[in-house]
């Protein structure tokens, strides 16, 4: 379904966020991309929905190469759940979910907010599936809690029946207690809708729990690819120690927080 073929992403300032990554994700798989922050997880995902384009190599979606030409057609099959939710504040929950179907909607309907009845029904059904109530429909998303906002984000992502769902650190800005519920929801929804998922996380224990398959990225390279069972504590330690070692050159800048991998070990 998804395929990266020796992909490198170089930014204008010369830094390489992704270095020669090859990866194939079959249809219906829940694939977790694990790695410390700054490893290149977001960039990897952003090359699938056209928010970034590879400097070298090819990105394929359903057997088709993503190019400037095919992008506008292909990106309709890809939905994204964002770390910061990326909902429109001051807009109602209902319109935020409906905006997930904007590419299908005529301009005059978008301008007047008059979405076709089937789309409105679908929005209600999806909001019900993510555990919100009809009372939430007219409320501004900025009034909701973080967890509820991400639920709205998930409902929005499924508005166009995506073949692929990209989840870019979907729980990084949420309370750890809520994170599990959100990931369960994401997992269940993608199962029910038969969606292929590429989900980036930085917590190994969550990755083990929800991923069918786990790939790990460090400094732009793919350093691990295997099942949750194969992701042992020693692999995690290697992964996160790499990140720690880079910072340890300055004794004052030692990260004050416990890294989840170490805490788990």
């Amino acid at each position, binding site marked *: 379904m998804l395929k990266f073929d020796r992909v490198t992403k170089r930014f204008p300032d010369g830094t390489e966020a992704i270095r020669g990554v090859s990866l194939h994700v079959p249809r219906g798989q829940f694939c977790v991309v694990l790695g410390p922050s700054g490893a290149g997880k977001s960039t990897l995902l952003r090359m699938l*929905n056209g*928010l970034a384009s590879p400097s070298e190599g090819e990105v394929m979606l359903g057997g088709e190469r993503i190019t400037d030409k095919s992008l506008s057609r292909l990106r*309709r099959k*890809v939905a994204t759940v964002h770390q910061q939710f*990326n*909902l*429109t504040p001051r807009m109602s929950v209902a319109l935020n979910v409906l905006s997930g179907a*904007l*590419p299908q909607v005529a301009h005059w309907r*978008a301008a007047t907010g008059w979405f076709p009845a089937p789309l409105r029904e679908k929005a209600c059904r999806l909001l019900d599936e993510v555990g919100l109530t009809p009372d939430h429909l007219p409320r501004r998303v900025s009034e909701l809690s973080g967890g509820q906002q991400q639920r709205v984000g998930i409902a929005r992502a499924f508005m166009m029946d995506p073949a692929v769902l990209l989840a870019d650190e979907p729980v990084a800005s949420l309370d750890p207690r809520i994170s599990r519920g959100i990931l369960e929801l994401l997992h269940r929804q993608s199962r029910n809708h038969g969606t292929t998922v590429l989900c980036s996380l930085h917590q190994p224990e969550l990755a083990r729990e929800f991923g069918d398959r786990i790939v790990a990225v460090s400094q732009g390279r793919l350093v691990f690819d295997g099942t949750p069972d194969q992701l042992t504590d020693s692999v995690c330690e290697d992964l996160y120690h790499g990140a720690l070692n880079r910072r340890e050159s300055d004794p004052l800048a030692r990260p004050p927080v416990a890294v989840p991998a170490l805490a788990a070990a």
Partner: protein
Amino acid sequence: MSDLSVDRAATWRLDPPFKARHILFALIALLILALTGVRMEVPRMVHDTVQGVGYAVGLAEQSPVADGVKRIAESVWPLRISEEIETARIENLDRNNLPWLSHIEVRETREPRMNTETLQIEETVERTEVLVKPVGYLMHVLAKMLETLEMALWGTLLAVLLSVPLAYYAAANYAPNRLAYNLSRSTISLFRAIPELVSALFLVLAFGFGPIAGFLALGIHGAGFLGKFYAEDIENADRGPQEALQSIGSGKIKTLLYGVLPQVMPQYIAYTLYILDRNVRMATVIGIVGAGGIGLELKGRFDMFNFGHVGTILLIIFLTVFVLDRFSARLRSRIL
């Protein structure tokens, strides 16, 4: 351990907030102010004002400024709100059915006149019958003020309609290409650079006296203002929601409608209300060059030295602006 921290602290540096160059800048700024202050006659302004205040509290013998203010106050007061028309000038006056609140009075004026037979100066009494409308002039001014408000409203509407497409092309992240961006940016600058008074002057030549020239002038200047601020708000809006909609292929216009507009709406309403407020004030002024509304009346009365009338007009303008200000403050607090 403590030795180590002492050593490290010695390498720290926290500079004071001011340095020699800041003092130099301050001195240069003072010098410029001193030079331009002399050209602007600031010393005379201070002298005359202090003298005027001194005169008011009884410390100074005389003050030209105080005399001027007194003359203005005396000529403006009492405000003129009534209107008198000679009945001889009114066609078909129905004496049994006079206009609302009005009544007929007879005025006697004594004038010394030369008797052509005796060649003596005699005092003659001339009787004129006048129709007095006690609030007639006030009503006239209010009607003119309403016209001014309508001009302001249409000017604002025109400004919004013009500035929305301009802002779309003038926002760097939505303009289709550099050419469209530069064109609309320069159009906006041009619109803003022409003062209403100047464009009204030319528009009066094109469209003749009346409100058309007035609201066109207001609309053009307002569009220059709104276009700039609308565009800058689009550019500064949070990118997150826009990326979310863009990544599923929503297209620019729909992304703008759903990813940007809800975010910037409060500012847009605030700017538009400010333009409406400004247009009401400007509409009173541009009437002076013949663009309709209360300004024309003001200029006419001023030129005829009818300062009682001028006082009424100024009071109505002030009250209108005040009421509008309260109204827009309420509207803003309800919407935001």
